[in-house]
């Protein structure tokens, strides 16, 4: 069996799926509120229960997002020359022939994705709490409503891209987020700077 290297810690993997699960639940119930999807609200036994699920799901998402910062936030702010070159070749996603520069643990697309989720996540969480607790103030309620919906659009665009790139577009990637481990040989090719940094190359 090929030698494996740990890319994600157990708590990172668990937290990722809590974040992902709550995010998808919130997205589905969010669409149900937006377009009055009764077949969705009836799955929850009615729109009032769906609201409770949405609100408390938001609390779970919020805590999970805060916890995820210990895993990704530092990396998400660090960019080097290879990262800029990565953007120039679009990460190799538009052509398999271009040479993709050597990457660290995360490529800049992933790092920017994380920052987008943090920014949109904080916005959607704060505005969600705004609609929950400040509804007596009409201007705060309207402001929260519009911020919540703008952030929602960032999510519905960014999250499917993340899911596609983490599954179909990059076979093998999903396994890393399930087990936390990836084959060392593959890691040497895809993340040479990270493997060097941890002293295995």
């Amino acid at each position, binding site marked *: 069996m090929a030698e494996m290297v740990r890319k994600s810690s157990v708590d990172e993997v668990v937290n990722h799926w809590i974040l992902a699960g709550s995010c998808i639940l919130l997205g589905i119930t969010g*669409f149900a*509120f*937006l*377009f*009055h999807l*009764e077949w969705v*609200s009836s799955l929850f036994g*009615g*729109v*009032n229960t769906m*609201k409770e699920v949405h609100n408390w799901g938001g609390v779970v998402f919020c805590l999970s997002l805060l916890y995820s910062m210990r895993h990704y936030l530092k990396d998400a702010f660090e960019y080097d020359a290879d990262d800029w070159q990565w953007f120039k070749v679009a990460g*190799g*996603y*538009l*052509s*398999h*022939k271009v*040479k*993709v520069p050597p990457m660290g643990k995360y490529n800049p697309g992933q790092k920017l994705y994380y920052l987008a989720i943090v920014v949109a996540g904080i916005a959607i969480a704060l505005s969600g709490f705004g*609609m929950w607790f400040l*509804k*007596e103030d*009409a201007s705060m*309620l*309207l*402001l929260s*409503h*519009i911020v919540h*919906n*703008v952030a*929602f*659009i960032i999510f*519905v*665009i960014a999250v*499917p*891209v993340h899911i*596609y790139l983490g599954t*179909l*577009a*990059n*076979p093998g990637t999903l396994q890393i987020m399930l087990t936390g481990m990836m084959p060392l040989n*593959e890691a040497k*090719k*895809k993340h040479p700077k990270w493997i060097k940094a941890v002293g295995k190359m």
Partner: protein
Amino acid sequence: MANDTSKNRKAILVTPEACIGCRACQVACKSWNQLPAIKTTNNGTYQNPPDLASAAYNIIQYSEVPFKENLVRWLFLSRRCMHCEDAGCVTICPSGALYKTAEGAVAFDRDKCIGCKLCVTACPFDVPRYDGEGKVTKCHLCFDRIANGMDPACVKTCPTGALKYGDRAELIDTAKKEGYTTLYGENDLHGLGSVYAFKEEPKLYGMKENPAIPSSVVFWHNYLKPLSLIGLGGVVAAAAVHYLAIGPHKEKEEEV
């Protein structure tokens, strides 16, 4: 943002000039809707309760306005939900609790209300109120009565004809023929379901000038809602195209 325009749209026509301020409409409304009394204190006006409330779907607004040489005019204005054709409350309601009936009434399904209060922010006329259990209440044009061919309770009891109910277009036509020059709500918000017939400036009676749904609600409805679907559909389609046209990352090509 207009809701479906119904050709047999019904309306209440309010003629404040004909109102004698008897408040029978308030009582009839409470009676039909089984609403409790509201404890209030005398604040120097006949207006009681002082404002629309969860137990007061309609009120008469009493105003004293200066008139020529030291005379005061005492004006009565029967207020209730305006039953907008383009109803901001229905547009923004996330649970489908607020809806429009076939007659054009804006009614509510109490069980569906999730108590978010967004309808309060979207209403140009400050109509929706919340009851003690955090559920929306408002005038529903007696949708249960009118669906069975009866007049709304307030209209049924009005002794002077200040409140009339019927076919909206006919009510407006008749009012114009009777010499009412200003029909408030004829075209506002694609036409209100509570139309007011005046011979004077509606502002004199305390009617709101240029009522409109908050611009952020209009923006949300016209742009953000469609964008959420276009965005999701767009990236899913783009991913599918990418998968077919360029294909997934392949290990061997990486070694180039």
